[in-house]
């Protein structure tokens, strides 16, 4: 009986909090309509995903590998990102580039996004500015873990 009363009190508390937000916001919205300037603004809900908020310049989104002018990756497979990655989610295999100026290129470049913790260390470690986290993509989900393993084809753009 006492326990049931406890539930009841919590429900009322919840209603009070929600209504307080509603009326406070309503109050500020009405003031705005009446043309009265206030420091505080009424809250607005963004209609995600139809409507998207602009991402801050320093936001870390899905990785991308930068391409050179001829379309080949800038990456020289130095594996510094592999070294620095705390989640051990990058795997690179190097191969011989016939271009003597380049010599080394990644024949395999895999990031297991499912393990990534979005620390951005890989971006900082890269001496070639070959990997960036500025694609602006934040909505990548998959039905299996393998869907989240990104290879060179998916990363290079």
């Amino acid at each position: 009986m006492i326990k049931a009363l406890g539930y009841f009190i919590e429900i009322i508390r919840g209603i009070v909090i929600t209504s307080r937000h509603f009326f406070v916001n309503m109050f500020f919205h009405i003031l705005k309509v009446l043309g009265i300037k206030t420091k505080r603004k009424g809250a607005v809900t963004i209609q995600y995903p139809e409507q998207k908020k602009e991402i801050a310049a320093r936001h870390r989104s899905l990785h991308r590998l930068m391409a050179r002018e001829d379309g080949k990756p800038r990456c020289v497979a130095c594996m510094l990102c592999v070294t620095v990655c705390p989640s051990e989610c990058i795997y690179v295999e190097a191969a011989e580039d016939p271009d003597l100026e380049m010599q080394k290129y990644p024949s395999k470049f895999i990031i297991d996004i499912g393990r990534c913790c979005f620390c951005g260390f890989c971006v900082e470690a890269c001496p070639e500015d070959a990997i960036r986290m500025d694609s602006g993509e934040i909505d990548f989900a998959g039905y299996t873990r393998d869907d989240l393993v990104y290879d060179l084809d998916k990363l290079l753009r």
Partner: protein
Amino acid sequence: MVKIHIDKKPIDVEEGTTVLKAAETAGISIPHLCYHDAFPPEGSCRMCLVEIEGLPKLELACSTQVRDGMKVFTKSEKVVEARKGVLEFLLAEHPLDCPICDKAGDCKLQDYYDEYGLFESQFRESKEKREKKDKIGKSLIHDEERCILCRRCVRFLREITETQELGVFERGIHSRVNIYDLTPVDNNYSGNLAQICPVGAITDEDFRFKTRSWFLKKGESICPLCSRGCSITIEYHPGFSHFGVPSRVYRIQSRENQEVNGFWICDMGRYGYSYLSENRLDKIVINNKEWNIQPTWEDVSYFINQQLKKLDEGKKTSQTVLILNTWLSNEELFLIHKIFKNDQNLERIFFADRPQAEKDDFLLTAERTPNKKGALEMGFDMKPANPGALSDKTDLLLAFGSFLAEQISAADLKKALEKIETKVLFTSHENELNSLFDIVLPTALIPEKGGSLTNIDGKIQKFSPVFEPPGDSLPEWMMLADLGRKFGINSSFYGEFKTPETIAKEIENEVPFFREQK
């Protein structure tokens, strides 16, 4: 003995020692690039400058001998300034392409820049372009841009191999190391060049772009490919398990051991490591229909024991044949000698080894097996395995290794083995031979177990496990000690043998040769 002070630390050293070596004994390291313990000082890189009290100019630590009462400063302001200057000149024409340089991580130039340099380049001119990928030998790639002209490579080929394939051509800033008349570096010790080049100017094609040196784990071991038993370092990676990349050995480097191989190893030992990971047997294989379970070592050892006991009780031990090889360690050979020769009086013990091959006049020996001397000293008479060895009535055959196939033709072997009731093979690899045996037990290789080997000169060298053996493989000494315990004539004796060291102790007690060598 002379008394000197290095960085105010008093030390006593032998007369004639260089300042560099004297400092090393005191635990003070002086940066150096061209100096290598194997050669007399050359004095070309100028990295080792130190200040000596009373002398107006800085001196080269690698080629200045100590004098009584000498006061050396290795970290004074002047010295650090000079090191910076030397580094700046070395790097003036250096490409600094460390991201694609296989030496990165092991490179002394990189280390010294990190320690003393850290300056911005003052040169505005672009660096000179030179040959970046010149194949100068079997497995060697030369990058002229990275070369600092320390001449270690040239000296190695003059003084150690005496083949003189490399030289320094032209003068001044045009100097470059190259081969004469397009005759590549081709000797059995060429791989050492990539190891002694202090920078990434000579790199190894075999290791090229495979991985980065700092990913590798290192373990000390002994090369088992010939009876010299050179000291080596095995560099391996345990694998990226969540990307499905298995563990593997990436390279073998030589390890200093003045009593055996100095600073060097031959190319056969350096590049012959694929056997460590390829075609390995990792499960017990049963080719006998009567067994309908996948047995463990426990089951198999019980079975072997039953067979041994049966033959022993029926006084029929003459119907057991043992085929050994000299890849087995001293400890393993000792246990075999104990169990089968002492306890069972077995006569029919044969050896099947990799055949001899050509030796050279430096390290490589003709015996392409690591422990022949050990087997001889253990008291085996080393009869070779041939078809005749199996011709008499045989009930039980215990064979070690897969070299039998190299000594007896497949047809002969098949015929001989068909008549034998029970055949057990201890081997590390998948092999055609395996299908001829009833039970095949996977074994560990030298870097996967502990023990000791006796090299051609009778030097006993210990080795410890570097990495784990694959799957269900076990070291032979473990299986043998277990058999000894179970066979029961003297089980408390074998019960002591929990590690290779305990066996080694017992060997010293019983076999005079091993006692004397100690």
